[in-house]
């Protein structure tokens, strides 16, 4: 039972007092930003990255991971009580959760979300522990051509699963890839796209890009519309779901967990896709499908389990292949690089404590979330009443301090502002920023592997199709692109994303 000894090692690491504290800090912060609408995990993790310079790698990654799955918990609270998705993955929870709150059943809705998430978290932790090692073993045999093709597949999948225009998403990926090339070229030492600016010699920091594109652009876009919020604070009394509720939710929770876990592993997947998928599936198979949208408890249970499961299993490609499947994972790669860890399959064998410690911390974090969150709901509700005009200057202060501390140079603030502007323009033109961040992280890696592969094959581009694994990745990418370009399916895809929002 290698898994058991590995998990024991992991729990040994995760249960050290400092790591426990970091896990707690992470999940609390995650819940906090999940609760607050308009503050997402991408911006928050980007904001905290500079601070993790001072931590040891294990503690840093445990905390950052906690933020991501903590945010899934917190997001549901806002969705249910205010009908605002605190987190993009809770969009579908709004539909039935808010209706339940209006019927005076906010308590059971919140409890269902928390318990469903906890169950999903436990299962997903096991799945990560079971599937990551064999995948990492396969990945150890990858050469440059396999890696290049895998990255192509990852980017294509991210594009296909992004919502909005396909062409725009691909263009954003490529724009990201190009921005990632700014700075000194490792092979030739040539300074590219630096325009004589000394600060650009080391490239554009992805923290600056992420904070500008997500943080700043989000704030500016949020300031455009005044929103009034109706908070159901007084109505949260009896939390516990009834027996009847339990009967109705166990199957959706199971289905949500497994669908969410599967969708989380996919490149391009993660919490958002998982929750949409689970809601759509549940609506199709449920006996009470007529009730959906009018306060069906299944409509809360399934997506909430799914988004938590998806959030956790999306760590699998990150930990085993070193390939991020969504923007948050891209930031986690950045965090690992900051700590001097090259992400990839060797992490598991070379740093088993980090690998298993992180997995164990996920389960502990989920336990903390369910134990802390139900009693703390009152506090989170209070936070919801903090007006945005207080919130956003505070976020700006933390963002500016974080960005400035990267290199103690005002230039990083200029870059962040520039990316804020680009992000805002992209919002207006309906170009998703997430593919850009993925491309940005993968740009240098892709170029490096492409060069190596071409060097090894003596300039024969067919090498990518001659190696079986590499060819498979490329063929799957092409099939995905073709399928999605077919008019029927494209229409369907757009419907799925439009229907629920």
């Amino acid at each position, binding site marked *: 039972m290698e898994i058991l000894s590995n998990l024991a090692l992991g729990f040994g690491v995760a249960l050290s007092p400092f790591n426990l504290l970091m896990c707690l800090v992470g999940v609390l912060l995650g819940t906090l930003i999940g609760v607050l609408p308009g503050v997402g995990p991408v911006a928050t993790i980007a904001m905290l990255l500079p601070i993790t310079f*001072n931590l040891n790698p294990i503690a840093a990654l445990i905390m950052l991971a906690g933020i991501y799955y903590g945010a899934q918990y917190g997001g549901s609270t806002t969705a249910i009580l205010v009908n605002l998705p605190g987190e993009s993955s809770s969009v579908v929870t709004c539909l039935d959760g808010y209706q339940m709150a209006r019927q005076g059943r906010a308590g059971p809705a919140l409890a269902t979300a928390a318990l469903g998430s906890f169950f999903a978290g436990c299962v997903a932790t096991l799945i990560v522990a079971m599937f990551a090692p064999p995948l990492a073993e396969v990945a150890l045999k990858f050469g440059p051509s396999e890696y290049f093709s895998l990255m192509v597949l990852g980017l294509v999948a991210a594009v296909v699963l992004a919502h909005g225009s396909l062409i725009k998403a691909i263009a954003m990926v490529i724009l990201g890839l190009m921005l990632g090339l700014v700075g000194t070229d490792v092979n030739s030492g040539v300074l590219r*796209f630096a325009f004589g600016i000394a600060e650009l010699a080391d490239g554009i920091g992805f923290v600056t890009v992420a904070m500008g594109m997500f943080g700043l652009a989000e704030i*500016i876009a949020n300031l455009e519309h005044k929103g009034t919020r109706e908070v159901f604070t007084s109505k949260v009394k009896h939390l516990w779901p009834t027996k009847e509720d339990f009967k109705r939710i166990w199957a959706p929770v199971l289905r949500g967990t497994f669908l969410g876990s599967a969708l989380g592993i996919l490149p391009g997947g993660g919490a958002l896709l998982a929750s949409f998928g689970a809601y759509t599936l549940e609506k199709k198979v449920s006996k009470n499908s007529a009730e959906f949208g009018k306060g069906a408890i299944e409509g809360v249970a399934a997506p909430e389990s799914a988004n938590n499961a998806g959030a956790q299993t999306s760590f699998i490609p990150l930990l085993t292949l070193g390939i991020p499947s969504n923007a948050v994972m891209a930031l986690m790669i950045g965090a690992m690089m900051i700590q001097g860890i090259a992400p990839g399959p060797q992490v598991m064998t070379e740093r088993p404590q980090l690998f298993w410690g992180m997995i164990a911390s996920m389960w502990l974090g989920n336990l903390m979330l369910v134990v802390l969150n139900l009693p703390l709901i009152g506090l989170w509700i209070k936070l919801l009443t903090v007006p945005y005009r207080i919130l956003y200057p505070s976020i700006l202060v933390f963002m*500016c*301090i974080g960005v400035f501390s990267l290199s103690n140079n*005002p230039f990083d603030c200029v870059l962040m502002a520039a990316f804020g502007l680009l992000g805002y323009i992209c919002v207006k033109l*309906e170009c998703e920023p997430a593919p850009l961040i993925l491309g940005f992280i993968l740009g240098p890696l892709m170029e490096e592997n*492409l060069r190596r592969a071409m060097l090894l094959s003596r300039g024969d581009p067919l090498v990518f199709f001659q190696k079986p694994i590499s060819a498979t990745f490329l063929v799957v990418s092409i099939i995905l692109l073709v399928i999605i370009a077919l008019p029927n399916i494209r229409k369907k895809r757009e419907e799925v994303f439009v229907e629920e929002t």
Partner: protein
Amino acid sequence: MVIKSPKDFWAGVMFIAFGAGMAAIALTNYQMGSAVRMGPAYFPTVLGGILAALGLILFMRSLVLKGGKVPAFSFRPLLLILFAVLLFGYTLKPLGLLGATLLLVFVSAYGGHEFKWKEVAILYVALFIFSVVVFVKGLTLPFPICPAPLEDFCRF
């Protein structure tokens, strides 16, 4: 020429500008190399070409297919928030957290819908104290707290 889908049109223009621009810079300034030994210009040129081509597709499509208008820009929050960030960056060293946070909080708050002097002032004081305690004292970031001439007044 009638633009039927302004959103796609401008997105197309943006991608063409970025793609063609960066490919041109790469081609004129860096070495192309060959497929076996790629020079620093190779990858950016290829990517720039693809990006410009995608932009062109969007551009052409926007002349044929009907699509959404570009929503109006709200210049007040946009300019004030970006300006506040720049202000913070360039005033942190000369004015310390005391001054830089003041400018950031007040300018950005002015970009919102409601601006109440008293509320913003309290928020500023709270954020300043929090930043000093957490970032400078706790995480030992090397930020000046006060403007240089006043340094002797604020030793905590």
